[in-house]
């Protein structure tokens, strides 16, 4: 991506788009609170984490402009998140199966 294109995309994020994402974030908050009110048992942790992840992706991509950044930024974020996921899942090998 040339510098010119990047500047162009930076300018193309209007107020409306941000407000739309914000409304989406509020809607997902409503959904996650409502779902927690229903007794879903062990599923509540899965649904909460899925919704929290969707909200984070919206914030990362639009509010934090990740969508419009260089490919390298996206690779970095993926590596960082993957590292954390590996840490957490490997920890469970010590606790879940003993």
């Amino acid at each position, binding site marked *: 991506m040339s510098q*010119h294109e990047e500047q162009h995309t930076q300018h193309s994020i209007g107020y409306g788009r941000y407000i739309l994402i914000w409304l989406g974030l509020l809607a997902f908050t409503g959904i996650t*609170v409502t779902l927690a009110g229903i007794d879903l048992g062990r599923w509540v942790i899965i649904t*909460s984490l899925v919704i929290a992840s969707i909200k984070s992706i919206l914030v990362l991509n639009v509010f934090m402009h990740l969508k419009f950044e260089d490919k390298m930024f996206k690779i970095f974020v993926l590596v960082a998140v993957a590292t954390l996921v590996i840490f957490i899942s490997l920890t469970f090998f010590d*606790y879940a199966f003993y």
Partner: protein
Amino acid sequence: MTTAATTHTHRDDVGSRMGMWLFLFTELILFGGLFIIYAVYRFKFPEQFSLAARELDTLIGTVNTIILLTSSLTVALSITAIQQGKKHLSMMLIGMTIIFALAFLVNKYFEWSHKISIGIYPQSPELLNKPPGEILYFGLYYVMTGLHALHVIIGMVVLLFSMVFIASGKINQQSYVKLEAGGLYWHLVDIIWIFLFPLFYLIS
């Protein structure tokens, strides 16, 4: 639109933003360690965690979630405003973000002081009488929301400086990467809360 001069500035800006992102990854690992502790103890004491979570007020948690999401919106809008050269609008939006941050902290203050008034705080006799899972839950609650609140305070200071820089012209339509970095920090604080909220408030 793009002259040689702005192209040059912009190239530096990409590096600055990359630096900010790298810093954010260290923050992710800082909180990540705490999330690992949470995950393990939650796994070991699921019922006691769920019982302890009943002490938390879901309404305050939800209100604070809405406050933080809205503050993320205002800081994102302030960047668009400065890109369009609307200096005062940008400053006003950052001002709103700071007010939202204050509102978040006031809520947090009332929430914590209520907990402390009913005897739930680290090492309190009331808490030590509870089963181990509940002690761990409240320990993690105070450490994780406390560390998060500290980040909110730091974010407020960073945004306050951004406002001063816009007023003095250091941040302007051509050069606004400082504000972008402040915004990135603020959004990270928001994302951390997006995970803290369901894990502490919505598991009862």
